[in-house]
Structures are given as structure tokens and as C-alpha cells.
């Protein structure tokens, strides 16, 4: 009887220890201690793509809601397809009058103009006439004749987009011109989402806006994030080109494989060279690693158009920006800052020169 009671006491003690160990096990899963078990993952269709936010911690559920709502708001402001959006109204008023804009749209147009100047027009936000003409990714995609390309190209010139900070207006000088923020709005929206998540106390999250990634903080287990860069030609060496070890970075890729059609053995994709009026040919894929996703979005397009020499020189002159570029020959070129974070994992069998 007494012995049994003793056994009972020992067992009870063991149970108590066991339960408390289990508790520790839960807590050691992440940086914030007890708040770590919770993962929130939400997906929404917007900006002509899919946006997924995965966030960790007690603050995550409300913060993710708010971040997605903010991204949807930005998407509604900046859609070139929607005649009722701010960009739609700006385009409709081309050649007629300036249009008053929200602070968001104005700020992003101003950033676009900054990079248009820096890249001598390789990034040009007034590319809309070419986007509409080619219709890539739409039902009516085709290869237009030279005359039509020339006509659309003549309407593309960032210098004819006039911004006035005092009235917060934008004005397209000539009828037929149009702004397309397809190469910047996803990045801007992701920046807003990141800001909201951080302000609400989320320390660990992944925002995936149609392949534009914001990796907030670190992985919930306290290690850095591992972000893959898609191999632009998965038949050559597998689907992942490289792994980026990342802490609080945004990664944006522009590739010729995202939206395209092939005709007569030629690939026609959605990133246009304003100089030629045709899809840009200097790169196969460009990934920018940075701390600002709107900037990264713009730069991925700009570097894609500029190609390896001018493009990488541009990036090397910018603070906190790295670049991984795949040439049309499938060579991989990186800036020195990118080399520290990027591990090439593409299987061999194709050229993989890593000069620079």
C-alpha cells in the first residue's frame, strides 16, 4: 500500500516533468518563444496573378488580413486594364488634361521616372501602347508588322509623362499614350504589405506576389530564409537555378518564360525594349535582391532590357541591391553582393560560367 503510493507519486512526478518538457519543445520552435506555433497562410487573386502571404506568430491573423486588403487597394488604383482605376483615368486623359492622383500612385510614378532617367529609358512606364499592341498573355497575341510597331513605339516616351508634385498630378502629353505599372505595382504592393506586417508585430513572414517575394525577417525557426530562383529553362538542369540565403530581403525576377508565345521558332515575351518596340533580347532572366520591392521590380525589368554589361553596372552602383542574371546563352552572371548570398544549384550539363 505504502509502496504503491510511492510508485504513484513517482509516476505523477514523471508526468509533470514530461508535460513541462513538451511545453518547452513547443516554445523552442522559434524566435519569439510561446508565440511560435501559429502559422497563417492566405491566398488571393489580384493584380492579374496570385498573392500568398504566410506569416507566423500571434499577430499574424489580423496583420495578414490587413496586408491583403492594402494590396487589393493598391491593385485597384494601379490596374491599367480597369478604365476606372487611377491609371485608367490617367491614360484616358492622355493629350487632354492632368489627372490628380493618390499619394501611392504618384509616388510610384515618380520612382519609375527616376529609373527611366537613370537607365536612359530602358525602363519606361509609358510602355502601355506596346503592351496593348502585342497583347502577350492575352487571347489576341500576335506578331505585329513593322509599321504598327513603329506607330506604337512612337507613343512610348517617359519624357512626355509630366509629374507635378505641388498639385500631385500626372499628365500624358499626347493622345494614345498610356502608363503601365505592370513592372512596378506588385513590388509597391508587397512593400506596403511588408510594412503593415512589421508594424503589427509580425517578425517572420513570406509575401509572394506572383513570384515577387518579400521575405520578412527570418524563418520562424530562427534560421535565414532559403529562396529559390526559378531556372528559366527547367529542361536544362531542373526547376531551381539557385538558392538565395536571405534575411529580410525582397527578390523580384523578370524572365522571358513568364508570359510568352513562340512563333516561327522565336519566343515573344512580355518585357519590351522601348528602343525596338519588340520583346527585349539581352537577357533570359534577371533576379534583383534588394530591400525595397518597388525598386527591385523596376530594376529587374530595367536590367533585363539593358543586358549583362550595362545592367550589372547599373546595379553595382546602387546600395543594398544585388543581381543574378541569366544570359540568352544560359550563362549565370552575378554582382559581388549577390555572390555572398547565392548558391547555384542548377544541375550541370549546360553552360554555367560565373564571371564577375
Amino acid at each position, binding site marked *: *500500500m*505504502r*509502496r*504503491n*503510493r510511492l*510508485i*504513484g507519486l513517482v*509516476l*505523477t512526478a*514523471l*508526468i509533470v516533468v*514530461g*508535460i513541462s*518538457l*513538451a511545453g518547452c*519543445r*513547443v516554445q523552442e*520552435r522559434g524566435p519569439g518563444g510561446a508565440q511560435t*506555433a501559429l502559422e497563417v497562410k*492566405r*491566398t*488571393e*487573386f489580384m493584380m*492579374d*496573378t*496570385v498573392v500568398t502571404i504566410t506569416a507566423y506568430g500571434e499577430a499574424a491573423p489580423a496583420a495578414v488580413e490587413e496586408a491583403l486588403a492594402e494590396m487589393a487597394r493598391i491593385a485597384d488604383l494601379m490596374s491599367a486594364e480597369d478604365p476606372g482605376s487611377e491609371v485608367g483615368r490617367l491614360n484616358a486623359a492622355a493629350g487632354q488634361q492632368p489627372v490628380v492622383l493618390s499619394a501611392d500612385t504618384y509616388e510610384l510614378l515618380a520612382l519609375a521616372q527616376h529609373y527611366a532617367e537613370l537607365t536612359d529609358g530602358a525602363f519606361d512606364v509609358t510602355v502601355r501602347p506596346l503592351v496593348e499592341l502585342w497583347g502577350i*498573355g*492575352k*487571347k489576341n497575341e500576335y506578331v505585329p508588322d513593322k509599321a504598327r510597331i513603329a506607330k506604337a513605339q512612337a507613343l512610348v516616351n517617359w519624357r512626355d509623362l509630366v509629374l507635378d508634385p505641388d498639385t500631385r498630378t500626372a499628365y500624358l502629353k499626347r493622345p494614345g499614350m498610356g502608363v503601365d505599372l505592370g513592372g512596378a505595382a506588385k513590388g509597391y504592393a508587397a512593400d506596403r504589405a511588408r510594412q503593415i506586417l512589421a508594424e503589427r508585430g509580425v517578425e517572420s513572414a*513570406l509575401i*509572394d506576389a*506572383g*513570384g*515577387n*517575394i518579400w*521575405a520578412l525577417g527570418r*524563418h520562424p525557426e530562427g534560421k535565414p*530564409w*532559403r*529562396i*529559390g*530562383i*526559378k531556372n528559366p529553362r*527547367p529542361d536544362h538542369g*531542373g*526547376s*531551381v537555378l539557385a*538558392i*538565395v540565403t536571405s534575411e529580410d530581403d525582397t*527578390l*523580384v*525576377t523578370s*524572365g522571358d518564360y*513568364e*508570359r*510568352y*508565345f513562340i512563333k516561327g521558332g522565336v519566343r515573344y515575351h512580355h518585357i519590351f525594349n522601348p528602343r525596338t518596340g519588340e520583346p527585349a533580347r539581352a537577357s533570359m532572366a534577371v*533576379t534583383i535582391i534588394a530591400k525595397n520591392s518597388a525598386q527591385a521590380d523596376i530594376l529587374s525589368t530595367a536590367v533585363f532590357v539593358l543586358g549583362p554589361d550595362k545592367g550589372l553596372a547599373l546595379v553595382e552602383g546602387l546600395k543594398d541591391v544585388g543581381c543574378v542574371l541569366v544570359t540568352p546563352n544560359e550563362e549565370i552572371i552575378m554582382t559581388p553582393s549577390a555572390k555572398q548570398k547565392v548558391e547555384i544549384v542548377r544541375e550541370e550539363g549546360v553552360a554555367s560560367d560565373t564571371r564577375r
Partner: protein
Amino acid sequence: MTRGDKVVLGAVVVLALAVFGYQGMRFRLMPPAQEAQVVVEVKGEVVETHPLKDLKAGGQWQVKGPLGYSVYEGGDNRVRMVSSPCPDKVCVKRGWISASGEAIICVPNQVVIHVEGHQEDEEGPDALTQ
């Protein structure tokens, strides 16, 4: 049965429950390493999940979106969309996907098919920029 026996019996039951609960929690937080999963979502909701290797080569499955049925096909550890009621067929042109983080996205029919590896799997990235 003496009172002591009852105490021991009760303790064993509680211990068993505690261990069971602990294992359950462990399982939920850190499932054992497993192979890639194909996750099919409609309107942002997961409707189907298959282990990638279980999608038989040549086998076809359909999933209903707002526009109608999207049909996907399995093949040697990969998956692709073979037909879709959308106008632009971006999803069909996407071709095969196989790596964790890769996705086939049909915006018009609001269907997403993506491959998820496991977090413990050191090979698979946490996300994919594309």
C-alpha cells in the same frame, strides 16, 4: 484493487495521455520528412492534395473553377495543366512543374496548382522567385 493500485492505474493512464498529447503536438508542429505534395486550390481554398509521386503518369484529374473544369495531368514526379476553360491558356502554356514552390496559376478560372515540399527538407526552398 487497493487504493494504491488505483493511483498507479490512474497515473499510467494520465502518463499515456500526456505522451500521446505530446506526440500529437510534435506531429502537428514537425511532421516527419515527407515527399513533395501537389496542392490544388480554387478561389484560394485548398480543394485537393496529392503526394506528387502518386499522380500516375498520364493520369488526368479535373477541378471546377468559376469558368468550368480545369484538367491537370501527372507524369513522372511532375504535374501540368492540360486543358482549361480560360481564354488565354497561360496555365496550359506553363508546362510541367515539379519543384517545391513552383505553381501553375490560372487567374481567370481561379485555380492554382502548386508543389509543396516539406519545411524540414533541406533541399526545397521556402519560396520561389519567378
